[in-house]
């Protein structure tokens, strides 16, 4: 505006005004986001801590007072009452942990190797192979689930952690390879060329640049772990009893003759602890991975 140039004194005042507006907007949006993410989770936590009698009072109590740990004690088997439920929950929780950690480790190993090759080597068909890999990201396990079921039956891998883990690897490998490739591409090639001059082999060169791509590897591991922990439809088909993960276990609590709200909620709270901690403490890597991973 012309006036502003003539009387520069006006501009700081306007800018200040705009800045307080912006700060107010930022505060309001921050508050909204906190409510958005945390209110539903608060209700889960509150339901897990409220006693059976208080639960059915109308209108519903906002605070679980007095809070009780009875549901947590029951689902963890600390009160010695319902042995079957607690045994199944604890087993399902460890099933989830073992399969997710195993699949994540395997995905990372595959993705480091393949991502490095795709970043550093152009060979006839490399673009086609990479394109094929990306297409499979759009068609996840569902479209291949039925023949996989027969393969898994033939290999007697139905209802085993190994079978479930292999499916997870095939489902989440493409994104991890994509991520590792794009992180390796940001590492200057000069480092490896210098190492090659000194007679370093391919493995030495890979381990030389791997620390530089470490943030990418953590991103890939975070996203893979969270995706594995979230699965429900796949284990419902492939690991529905002995090897069931915690999501499938929780669905067995729903829809019984009498609904055990407190028990469900306590199980829910415990089952979201691992992904919650990962999302909060590795958030920088999670966000970086999501930002990069979406660009395909």
């Amino acid at each position, binding site marked *: *505006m012309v006036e*502003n140039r003539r009387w520069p004194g006006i501009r700081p005042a306007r800018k200040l005004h705009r800045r307080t507006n*912006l700060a107010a907007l*930022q505060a309001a*949006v*921050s508050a909204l*986001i906190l409510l958005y*993410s*945390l209110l*539903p*989770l608060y*209700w*889960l936590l509150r339901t897990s801590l409220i006693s059976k009698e208080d639960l*059915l009072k*109308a209108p*519903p109590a*906002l605070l679980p007072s007095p809070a009780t740990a009875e549901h947590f004690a029951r689902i963890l088997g600390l009160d010695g009452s319902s042995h079957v439920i607690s045994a199944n929950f604890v087993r399902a929780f460890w099933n989830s942990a073992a399969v997710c950690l195993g699949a994540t480790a395997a995905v990372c190993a*595959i993705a480091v*190797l*393949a991502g490095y*090759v795709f970043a*550093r*080597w152009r*060979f006839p068909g490399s673009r086609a*192979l990479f394109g*094929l*890999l990306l297409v*499979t990201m*759009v*068609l*996840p396990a*569902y*479209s*291949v*689930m039925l*023949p996989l079921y027969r393969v898994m039956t033939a290999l007697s891998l139905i209802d085993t952690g190994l079978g479930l883990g292999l*499916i997870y*690897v*095939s489902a989440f*490998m493409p994104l991890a*390879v994509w991520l590792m490739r794009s992180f390796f591409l940001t590492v200057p090639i000069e480092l490896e060329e210098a190492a090659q001059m000194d007679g370093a082999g*391919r*493995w030495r060169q890979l381990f030389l640049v791997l620390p530089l791509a470490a943030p990418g590897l953590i991103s890939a591991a975070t996203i893979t772990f969270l995706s594995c922990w*979230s*699965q*429900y*439809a796949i284990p419902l088909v492939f690991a529905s009893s002995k090897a069931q993960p915690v*999501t499938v276990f929780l*669905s067995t609590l*729903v*829809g019984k003759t009498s609904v055990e709200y407190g028990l*469900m*909620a306590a199980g*829910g709270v415990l089952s979201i602890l691992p*992904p919650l901690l990962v*999302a*909060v403490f590795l958030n*920088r890597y999670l966000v970086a991975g*999501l930002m990069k991973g*979406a660009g395909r």
Partner: protein
Amino acid sequence: MKRRDNDIFLLWLLPMALVLLCFVILPLLVTVVDSLYSVSLLNVSDRSFAGADNYLTVLKDANVRTAAGNTLFYTVVSLTAETVLGIAAAVALKEKYRGRSVILAVLSIPWALPPMVNSMTWKLIFDPSVGILNEILLQWGVIDAYQVWLNNPELSKWCVTTVHVWKMLPFIVIIMLARLQTMPREIMEAAETDGASAVQKFRYFTFPYLRPVLFITLAQGTIGAVHLFDEPYAMTGTALDTRTLLIQDYLTAFREYNLGTGMALALLISVSILLLMVLYAKLAGRQEEW
């Protein structure tokens, strides 16, 4: 680079190629072939060539049509909500401020949690006897009596959509934010010097800058909505009002044991998604030419 050096690269690609071949490509080929046969899950050796019969069965099935309608509903409603709310949140979060990284961490929590547990959590909110939603809406005067949200065909689809969007929106915001943060400061400063209003700045600068990434968020949102399974299955089971195409496919193959029909439906869903992705890519490409 010497040829001999590159041999080890082939070895490094091998694990990926094996997994891709055994768990994706071969099963996919089997899907294509078996969709032309009549196969039962109970006895897979008992099969007969059926040609296009499975596809005709799928297309004529009234339940498939209902499920397709529901999936279309979920896709349209969630894409609208994700795009509008996503843009609003990304614009508001664009400038760095103290505590923003904490807010982003909290925002990403719903994305990180299993949809099955999210559904359970929201079921506890919707529940007419132990939930809080009825009480809040009653107090605010939005409703005049308690509603049985998930048993009401008018409302249950909206409930499922809410839970799905709750998980997807953080992801959409993060993608949009990634784009907005690369916007050159000079553009906005120039606009401010010229006295552009907030609306004008959004319309002529922010939105055009955001547009290329909108196709990515639309693509991600579409994949998420078409693959919807956990939320409706966990909240309302196989009820026809909320049933999606994937739930229908699960029922056909694993409850009715019609493998051939199930594979035909799975392929139709996959091809539709691929076509949509090609369409988005075409639209995005034309965008860049402008």
